């Protein structure tokens, strides 16, 4: 009962926020809404029993990645070119096509999805799933884990290379 109320409450907020994020005019407003969106999504994760993922979502997504977006908006002129370009009619056709395609795809998905039987659905909320996740990550996912560090390394190097000033690039 409580779960259903919380889920539909969060889901309606998330739906409204997701639509708002891609439709508002100002980038700052969009980022702020996206922060709320990700925060409430963390609530859904918590509802699903993924406490650790929920807190990671808050730490990394809401607390770090979106700070980066915020900084970029501050660094660039915030009132930069906001006008939308492109053919209105063409856009409308494309929009309807994508929407219909998605509806069709979703129906297909639910049609083909093997119905979960009562035995399949475990949905037990693990008491201390930080420990379980850690154990599984460090025992079964060694290589992806080490590769993730390589990915972070690549991220560091390329971000620095790209954001160098052009004048510096010439001298190198």
């Amino acid at each position, binding site marked *: 009962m409580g779960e259903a109320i919380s889920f539909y409450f969060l889901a309606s907020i998330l739906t409204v926020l997701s639509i708002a994020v891609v439709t508002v005019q100002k980038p700052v407003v969009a980022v702020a809404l996206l922060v709320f969106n990700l925060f409430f999504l963390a609530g859904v994760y918590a509802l699903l029993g*993924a406490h650790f993922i929920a807190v990671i979502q808050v730490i990394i997504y809401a607390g770090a*990645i979106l700070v980066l977006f915020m900084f970029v908006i501050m*660094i660039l002129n915030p009132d930069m070119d906001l006008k939308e370009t492109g053919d209105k009619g063409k856009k409308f056709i494309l*929009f309807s096509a994508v929407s219909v395609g*998605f509806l069709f795809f979703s129906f297909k998905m639910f049609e083909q999805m093997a119905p979960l039987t009562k035995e399949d659905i*475990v949905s037990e909320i693990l008491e201390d799933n930080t420990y379980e996740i850690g154990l599984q990550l460090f025992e079964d996912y060694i290589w992806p884990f080490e590769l993730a560090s390589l990915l*972070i390394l690549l991220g560091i190097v390329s971000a620095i290379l*790209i954001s160098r000033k052009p004048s510096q690039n010439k001298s190198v």
Partner: protein
Amino acid sequence: MVPIEHYFILALIMFTCGTLGVLFRRNLLFMLMSIELMLNAVNLVFVTASSFLGDLDGQIMVFFVITLAACEAGIGLAMVIAIYRRYGTINPDFLKVLRG
């Protein structure tokens, strides 16, 4: 008890919003934000499946997706800054240079 389909529908709505944002917003910042939205929809599906099946693999995948998203956002935004400095705009329609 909320059926699993409803979680998937929520994820689908978020993913669709993200896709439409990438396709229609003519602003690189909004396009990157929409990509974040899409990645989050994917994460939601992973977490839902993991919770309903009682299997933690899905949650570990979310970890890697978040790592990926962080790197993607970092590099993407670095490119946005570089493009803005070079061309003075972040509207992809004006960036004809990128079209071969």
